[in-house]
C-alpha cells in the first residue's frame, strides 16, 4: 500500500463526519466484524486513521477499495462542495429505452477513448440514480484519486449533476455523456448549489407546486386559525392572496435548499439625474447576488409577508420555473435571457 493511498485514506477519514464513520465503514464492508469491533470511535480522527491504515495493510486493500469507501461516503452525504447541473439536449429516438448496463459500458468505453489513464467507477444508487466517480490522469501521470469528479445522472432524464470538474475536463466528460446517453448536445443548466438533493428536486420538479384550482385550496384551509370573535383581521384576504401568489411562484411545503441566486445585469443605466452614466454607450454591467441558507424559503416569506410585491416578478419566479439560479439580464430580451456560464467560477 503506497503512501499516496495512505494519504488518500487519511484525507478520507478526516472528511467523513465522526458520527457516521461507523455506519459508513459497515456499508463499505471491507472490514471483518472483529475489526469493526476493534475500532474505538471515540478516539480522535488521526488515531482512527492510524488504526484503519493498519487494518487495510492487514487485509491488503488497495486504492480501488479506498475509492469504494470514498464513494459510499459521498453517496451518503453528497452535500459537500458545489454541484453543477447540466442538461442534455435533443435526444435520439432510443434515448428513452437505454438501460443501465449498456450505459455503463458505453460511458466507460467512450471516456477511455478520450482520455487515459482514467479510473471510472459507476454505481447504481437505490433511487434510480447512477453515480459515476472519475479520477483523471493524463499521459504523464496516473489517475489522481485525491480530487475525483463525481457525476450523478438519472437515466431517461435530460439532467446531469457534476461536482469538482475543471474546465479542462469538461469537454471530455460532456462528450462521453452525450454519446453514451444517446443525446446530441449538452448545455449548462445554470443551476448550482451545495445540496445535490435540492437542485435535483428542483429540476425533477419533486417539490410541491401550487396551481390555481376551482376547488378550495389546501392553503386556505391550513390558514384557518380559530380566533376570538372580538379580534378581526382587516386585511385578511389580501394576505391570503399574497400567500397564494407566493406559493404559486415558489411552491408549497418544504422547498429545495438553494444558497444563492446571481443576476448579471448588462443593461443600460437609466437615471435622468445622472447624465454621464446614462449616456454611456457600453451597457452598465453589475452583478446582483442573493444569498441565504434557504433562499427559496426566504423569498417566499418575503412575498407572502408583503415585503416583496406580488405578483412575484418573473426574475424571481423563474428561478423555479426555469430551474436555474444564474441569470444574465440584457436590455433587448426583457426578463432573464439564457446564457451559459463556466461551472468553475
Amino acid at each position: 500500500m503506497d503512501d499516496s493511498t495512505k494519504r488518500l485514506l487519511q484525507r478520507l477519514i478526516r472528511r467523513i463526519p465522526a458520527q457516521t464513520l461507523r455506519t459508513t465503514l459497515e456499508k463499505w464492508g471491507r472490514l471483518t466484524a472483529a475489526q469493526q469491533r476493534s475500532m474505538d470511535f471515540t478516539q480522535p480522527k488521526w488515531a482512527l486513521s492510524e488504526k484503519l491504515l493498519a487494518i487495510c495493510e492487514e487485509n491488503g486493500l488497495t486504492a480501488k477499495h479506498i475509492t469504494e469507501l470514498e464513494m459510499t461516503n459521498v453517496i451518503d452525504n453528497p452535500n459537500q462542495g458545489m454541484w453543477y447541473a447540466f442538461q442534455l439536449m435533443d435526444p435520439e429516438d432510443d434515448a428513452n429505452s437505454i438501460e443501465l448496463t449498456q450505459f455503463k459500458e458505453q460511458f466507460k468505453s467512450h471516456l477511455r477513448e478520450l482520455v487515459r489513464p482514467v479510473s471510472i467507477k459507476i454505481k447504481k444508487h437505490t433511487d434510480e440514480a447512477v453515480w459515476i466517480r472519475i479520477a483523471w490522469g493524463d499521459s504523464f501521470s496516473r489517475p489522481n484519486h485525491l480530487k475525483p469528479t463525481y457525476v450523478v445522472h438519472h437515466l431517461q432524464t435530460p439532467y446531469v449533476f457534476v461536482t469538482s470538474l475543471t474546465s479542462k475536463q469538461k469537454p471530455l466528460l460532456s462528450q462521453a455523456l452525450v454519446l453514451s446517453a444517446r443525446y446530441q448536445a449538452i448545455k449548462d443548466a445554470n443551476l448550482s448549489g451545495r445540496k445535490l438533493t435540492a437542485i435535483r428536486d428542483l429540476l425533477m420538479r419533486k417539490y410541491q407546486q401550487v396551481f390555481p384550482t376551482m376547488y378550495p385550496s389546501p392553503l386556505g384551509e391550513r390558514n384557518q386559525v380559530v380566533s376570538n370573535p372580538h379580534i378581526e383581521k382587516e386585511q385578511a384576504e389580501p394576505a391570503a392572496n399574497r400567500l397564494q401568489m407566493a406559493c404559486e411562484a415558489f411552491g408549497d411545503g418544504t422547498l429545495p435548499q438553494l444558497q444563492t441566486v446571481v443576476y448579471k445585469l448588462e443593461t443600460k443605466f437609466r437615471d435622468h439625474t445622472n447624465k454621464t452614466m446614462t449616456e454611456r454607450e457600453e451597457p452598465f454591467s453589475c452583478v446582483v447576488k442573493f444569498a441565504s441558507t434557504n433562499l427559496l424559503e426566504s423569498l417566499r416569506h418575503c412575498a407572502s409577508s408583503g415585503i416583496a410585491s406580488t405578483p412575484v416578478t418573473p426574475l424571481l419566479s423563474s428561478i423555479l420555473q426555469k430551474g436555474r439560479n444564474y441569470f444574465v439580464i440584457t436590455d433587448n430580451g426583457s426578463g432573464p435571457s439564457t446564457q451559459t456560464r463556466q461551472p468553475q467560477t
Partner: protein
Amino acid sequence: MALLKPFSKLPCLNTANILLVESEEQFQQSLADTLVEETAFTVNVRLAKSLPLPMENEESRPRIDLVVFIINLTSELSFQSAEVSLKNLDPGYFLGKVCFMVTNARNASVPTERLDAVRKLAASLHCPMLFAEDQTPDGVTNATERLLTILKVAAGFVPMATALYLSNLTRRTAPPDIEQPSFD
C-alpha cells in the same frame, strides 16, 4: 382612498374598539389576544398591516376609538410603513386617539437615529409613544394594560377625562438627548 374617521359611526354600549397597525403582523396578534381578555368592558380589536383599510368591510367595522401604530425599531421598513399609513387617518384622530408603541428599543442593533426619528414623528403629531417589551409575557401584559388605560379614556369610560386631555399629559414635547447632560 377613504380616510378613517373617528366620529363617523356611533359608539355602542360598553364597548371599546382598538385598531392595531403593524407591518410585521407579529406583536399585534399577541397583544390582541390579551386585550380581549378585558372583562370590565368589551374590547373589539382590529388588526391591520397598514392603512388605508379595505373598503369592503367598511360597514362591518365599528367606530375605532384608538389607533395604535406598532413600530419595531430593528426594521426600517416597519417605521416607513407606519409613516405612510399615518397619512390615511382623519386629522380628528390626532386629538388623542392615536398612539405609537415601540418595540426592541433596547436592542443593540438599533441605530439611535431611527429612535430619534420615531420620537420626532410622535412629538410632531402630539401622540404619546409607549415602549414595550414584546419578548416576555409580562412585557406583553403590561403593554396591554397601558393600551387599555389609554383606550378607556379614549372610549370615554373615564368620567371627566377626554383623550385630548390625556394625550396632553402624556405626549413628548421634543426628542431629548440624554447622552451627555452637562450640569454646568
